[in-house]
C-alpha cells in the first residue's frame, strides 16, 4: 500500500527554515511559564508554603517575559511565530503587535499583584483547593489570548481562562459563592458558545482561521455571505464577556462573592480580554463592519458607562460598588472603539491599561478596608481615618485616578476620548464620559467618607498594625505608584497608546508582519 518513493517536497515552500531570533521566544514565554509553574504548583498542592513561593517565582518570570516581549515589539515591530514552523496561515500563529504586547504586559503586572495579595488573603485551605495553580493557568490563558493570531485558538484560550476562573470563583464553596458562580459560569459559557458560532460562520466564508489571513480576505468577500451576522455575533459574545450593558447582569451577581484577591484579578483581567477581542476583531479584521456598527457601539458605550456608575451609587456593599465601576469603565473603552479614530483608539488603549491597574488596586484596597472594618457594608462602615490615616491617602489617590481627576492616570485617556468624541461632533458621547466621571466620583467619595470619616460603630477595635497587612498593602501601593507615574509623566504612555492606535487603524501592518511583505493572494 504505502509508496516508498518520496515525493519531491521542497521544504522552503512550506516551512520557515530560518531560526527565529532569540528575543522572539519571549512570545511563547508567558504560555510556557504559566503552564509549567501551574503544574508545579499542582504537584505541591498540599505544601501550601512552597506552592505559594513557586507561584510567585512563576508570576515574576511571566512578568519578565511580558516585559521582554513588550520591549522587543517596541523595538522591532510585530513579532510573529507559527507553531510547527509552517508558513501562516497553516500553523497556529502567535502574533504580538503593540496592542497584544501592551495588554500582556499590564496583565502580567496585575497577575503578580494579585498573586502577592493572595499570600495574605488566601488561607491554607484555599491554597489546597488550588488558588495558585488556577491563577497561573488563568494568567497563561489571558496572556495567550492577547498574543494569539488565530481565531479558533482565541476561543481555546477563552475556555482555558474561563475554566481556571471557575475554579477561582468557587474557592471556599460558600453559599453566596455557589450562587454567584452558577450565574457567572452559565452566562460566560453561553457567551463563548456564541463566539464559537461566529467562528463557524467565519470559517464557512473565509476558509481560514488566521486573523491576518481573514483581514486580508475581508475586503474582497465583504458582500458574500452573512458578514454582518458574524460581526453582530462577535459584538454580542464579546460584549457579554466585557459586561457591556445590557449584557452585564452576570458581573454584579458574581464579582463580590469570591475572595478579594480573586475579585481583583477578575476585575483587572477578564472583562478586558473581551475588550481586546473586540478591538482585534473590529479594527484588524472587520473595519468596515465596525463603521456600520459604530452608532450601536456608541449607544451601548454611553449606556454602559452611565448605568454602571449609577449602579455603583445604588450599592451598599463596597465590593458590589466596585463591580459596577468595572462595568462603567467598560463603557469608556467601548467609546473609543465606536469612534475608531486615532485619538479615540489611543484613549481606549490607555484607558484599558489604566483600568486594569486601577480596578485591581481598588479591589485590593477594598479587601484591606474590609479586613480592618470587619464589614463591607456601607451602613456599618466607619472609623478608618482614626486607625490608619495614611490608608486614606492611598484610597484618595485611587479614587481620584478611577474618577479621572488629575494628576493621576485616569485623566489622560478621558481627555483623549472626550476630544475624540468632540472632534467628530458626537457631543452626547463626550457628555456621557464626563457625567459618568462625576457619578463615579460621587459613588467613590461617598464610600470614602463613610468608611474613613464616620466614627466607628464599635469602640473596642484593636489598633491597626502595619505588620499584619504588609503584603496586602505593598501590592496595592505598587499599583497605585504606577497610576501616579502614569498621571504625572503621561508622555511615554500616550506615545505607546498612540502607536497601538496607529497600528490598529492600518491593519496592513499586522497582515504584513504575519505574511512577510509579499502581497500575493493566498488561495
Amino acid at each position, binding site marked *: 500500500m504505502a509508496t516508498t518513493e518520496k515525493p519531491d517536497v521542497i521544504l522552503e515552500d512550506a516551512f520557515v527554515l530560518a531560526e527565529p531570533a532569540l528575543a522572539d521566544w519571549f512570545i511563547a514565554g508567558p504560555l510556557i511559564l504559566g503552564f509549567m509553574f501551574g503544574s508545579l504548583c499542582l504537584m505541591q498542592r498540599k505544601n501550601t508554603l512552597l506552592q505559594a513561593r513557586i507561584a510567585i517565582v512563576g508570576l515574576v518570570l511571566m512578568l519578565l517575559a511580558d516585559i521582554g516581549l513588550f520591549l522587543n515589539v517596541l523595538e522591532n515591530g510585530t513579532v510573529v511565530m507559527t507553531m510547527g514552523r509552517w508558513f501562516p496561515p497553516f500553523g497556529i500563529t502567535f502574533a504580538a503587535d503593540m496592542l497584544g504586547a501592551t495588554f500582556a504586559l499590564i496583565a502580567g503586572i496585575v497577575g503578580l499583584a494579585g498573586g502577592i495579595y493572595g499570600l495574605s488573603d488566601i488561607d491554607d485551605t484555599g491554597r489546597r483547593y488550588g488558588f495558585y495553580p488556577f491563577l497561573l493557568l488563568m494568567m497563561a490563558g489571558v496572556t495567550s489570548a492577547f498574543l494569539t493570531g488565530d481565531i479558533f485558538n482565541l476561543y481555546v484560550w477563552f475556555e482555558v481562562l474561563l*475554566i481556571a476562573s471557575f475554579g477561582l470563583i468557587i474557592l471556599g464553596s460558600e453559599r453566596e459563592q*455557589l450562587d454567584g458562580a452558577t450565574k457567572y459560569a*452559565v452566562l460566560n459559557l453561553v457567551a463563548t*458558545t456564541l463566539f464559537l458560532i461566529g467562528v463557524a460562520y467565519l470559517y464557512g466564508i473565509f476558509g481560514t482561521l488566521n486573523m491576518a489571513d481573514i483581514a486580508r480576505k475581508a475586503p474582497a468577500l465583504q458582500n458574500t455571505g452573512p458578514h454582518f451576522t458574524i460581526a453582530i455575533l462577535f459584538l454580542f459574545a464579546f460584549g457579554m464577556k466585557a459586561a457591556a450593558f445590557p449584557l452585564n447582569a452576570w458581573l454584579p*451577581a458574581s464579582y463580590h462573592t469570591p475572595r478579594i484577591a480573586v475579585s481583583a484579578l477578575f476585575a483587572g483581567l477578564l472583562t478586558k480580554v473581551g475588550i481586546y477581542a473586540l478591538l482585534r476583531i473590529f479594527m484588524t479584521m472587520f473595519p468596515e463592519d465596525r463603521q456600520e456598527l459604530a452608532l450601536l457601539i456608541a449607544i451601548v458605550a454611553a449606556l454602559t458607562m452611565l448605568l454602571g456608575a449609577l449602579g455603583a451609587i445604588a450599592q*451598599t456593599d463596597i465590593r458590589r460598588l466596585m463591580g459596577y465601576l468595572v462595568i462603567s469603565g467598560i463603557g469608556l473603552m467601548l467609546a473609543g472603539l465606536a469612534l475608531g479614530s486615532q485619538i479615540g483608539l489611543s484613549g481606549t488603549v490607555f484607558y484599558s491599561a489604566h483600568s486594569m491597574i486601577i480596578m485591581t488596586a481598588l479591589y485590593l484596597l477594598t479587601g484591606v478596608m474590609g479586613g480592618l472594618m470587619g464589614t463591607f457594608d456601607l451602613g456599618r462602615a466607619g472609623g478608618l481615618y482614626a486607625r490608619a490615616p495614611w490608608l486614606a491617602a492611598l484610597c484618595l489617590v485611587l479614587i481620584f485616578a478611577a474618577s479621572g481627576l488629575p494628576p493621576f492616570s485616569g485623566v489622560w485617556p478621558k481627555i483623549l476620548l472626550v476630544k475624540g468624541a468632540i472632534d467628530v461632533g458626537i457631543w452626547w458621547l463626550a457628555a456621557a464620559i464626563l457625567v459618568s466621571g462625576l457619578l463615579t466620583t460621587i459613588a467613590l467619595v461617598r464610600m470614602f467618607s463613610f468608611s474613613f470619616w464616620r466614627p466607628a460603630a464599635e469602640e473596642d477595635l484593636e489598633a491597626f498594625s502595619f505588620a499584619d497587612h504588609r503584603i496586602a498593602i505593598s501590592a496595592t501601593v505598587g499599583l497605585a505608584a504606577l497610576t501616579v507615574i502614569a498621571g504625572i509623566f503621561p508622555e511615554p504612555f500616550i506615545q505607546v497608546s498612540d502607536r497601538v492606535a496607529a497600528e490598529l487603524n492600518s491593519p496592513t501592518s499586522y497582515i504584513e508582519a504575519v505574511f512577510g511583505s509579499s502581497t500575493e493572494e493566498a488561495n
Partner: protein
Amino acid sequence: MEVAVAVLTGVFFFVSIYLILSRHIIRILLGIAMLGNGVNLTIFTAGRITREVPPIIGADAYVPLEGIANPLPQALVLTAIVIAFSFFAFLLVLVFRTYQELDTDDTGEMRYAEPRDEETPPLGY
C-alpha cells in the same frame, strides 16, 4: 445532505434556546449542552459533507480533488466537543452543589448573592 444537517442544526438551536429560557437551572444546563452540539454541527456543515471523495492528496498533485470534505472543521469540532463536555461536567457538579446549598433549582429564587431585601445605601451620618 447539507440541507438535512442544516435543518437539524436549526432544531438544535431552537430547542436549546427554548430550554435556556426556562427558570429551572437543570433545563438551562440541558439547553447549554444542546447549544454546544448545535454549534458543533454548524462547524461540521461549514466544511462540506461528502463521503465520495477521500481527503487525500495524490502523490502527483499539490491540491486535493474538487469537492472533498474539508477535514479541518472536523478537527475543530473534536476540540469543541472535548471543551464543551468538560464544561458541562463542571457545570453539572456546580449546579448540584448549588442545589444542595440553596435548596432550590429555580433561578428566580437564587438570590443569596444579590438579596432581594437589601438595604439602600445610607444617605448621611
